[in-house]
């Protein structure tokens, strides 16, 4: 089972149109193994991207070096998945 310890989901907000292609460039950086949950659309829509633990520092440095604003939407994805799984299991037990 694929585990996602330490994976974070970053919410990236472009300041203006010029930053959109900079964010889109991330899609081509396959070494980061990014998973775009919400793709690049326009300035008014945030971009959500899951970043594996091993790429986190590089991606954050990359964003900060280009003055691209981001926040951490999910601090540790596996924690959330564990909660979801526990909730499913406890609800199933109650049903039984």
């Amino acid at each position, binding site marked *: 089972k694929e585990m996602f310890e330490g994976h974070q989901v970053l919410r990236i907000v472009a300041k203006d149109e010029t930053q959109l292609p900079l964010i889109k460039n991330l899609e081509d950086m396959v070494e980061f193994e990014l998973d*775009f*949950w919400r793709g*690049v659309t326009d300035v008014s829509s945030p971009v959500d991207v899951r970043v594996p633990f091993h790429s986190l520092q590089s991606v954050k440095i990359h964003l900060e070096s280009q003055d691209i604003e981001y926040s951490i939407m999910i601090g540790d994805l596996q924690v*959330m998945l564990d909660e*979801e799984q526990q909730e499913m299991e406890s609800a199933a037990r109650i049903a039984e």
Partner: protein
Amino acid sequence: PRNTDSFDFSRYHTISEIYSFQDMLVAENPNLVSKIVIGQSYEGRPLNVLKFSTGGTKRPAIWLDTGIHSREWVTQASGTWFAKKIVTDYGRDPAITAILNKMDIFLEIVTNPDGYYFTHNSNRMWRKTRKPNSGSSCVGVDPNRNWDAGFGGAGASNNPCSETYRGPRAHSEPEVKSIVDFVKSHGNFKAFVSIHSYSQMLLYPYGYTKTPCKDQAELHNLAKKAITDLASLYNTSYRYGSIINTIYQASGGTIDWTYNQGIKYSYTFELRDTGRYGFILPANQIIPTAKETWLALMAIMDHTSKNMY
């Protein structure tokens, strides 16, 4: 649960629980609901479509599907709730009763069963199908880039390892081909709604070209009405418009193909997340999401039934 009344719609379910729900619903409503298996997934799972019909043959029909991207769990959960809503409201709610007295509704809840099973047992983040790609170690095709509509154009990837890999050729995926064949053989669909999550959008064709579709004005106005009805429940705000103008260029998309087949009312929903959960939407938001989405679906189905073409 021994019947669908005691089915817990407020939590996420495994594929076998959803399949048994479907069979229960059919058994409880033999005069309204039947199950059609339109094909098999790559790994051999049945592609179940629930048909809601009050008679006639090949009546004008409405298609709803959820879960084509397997990790978008709130969509399969909402689809399950829609199925129960239809049977609960038929004969009680005048609007859905009027629709079903002249049209059929087809609902495919688990449109990508292999992917959905995989999200429960191996990788919660899985989006694509599970068919291996020859010549690559990466598995799966994006089933929303595999349709013969602008296939091969910009807005999809040629790389089997990409989440938006279009596949080796159009309709290469059995999960897609089965719908294509079913829609073509039925020949009388008037509306087609494919439901995704998340980003709260209601989209209509096209995604592969900037050329406006010929019914753009009507589809735009109907989308506006639908998202207004949706927002009336919990104030969930949606954006709406053509795929290419509202999100990005996407080739080989489902509703571009259905629209090009002549199914005018072709829409894609992107359901919640209203907060910061993304695909891991808490189960306590399933029913509110389903309820608000149903208002939008009713607007589209009502308009379709009153504007036959």
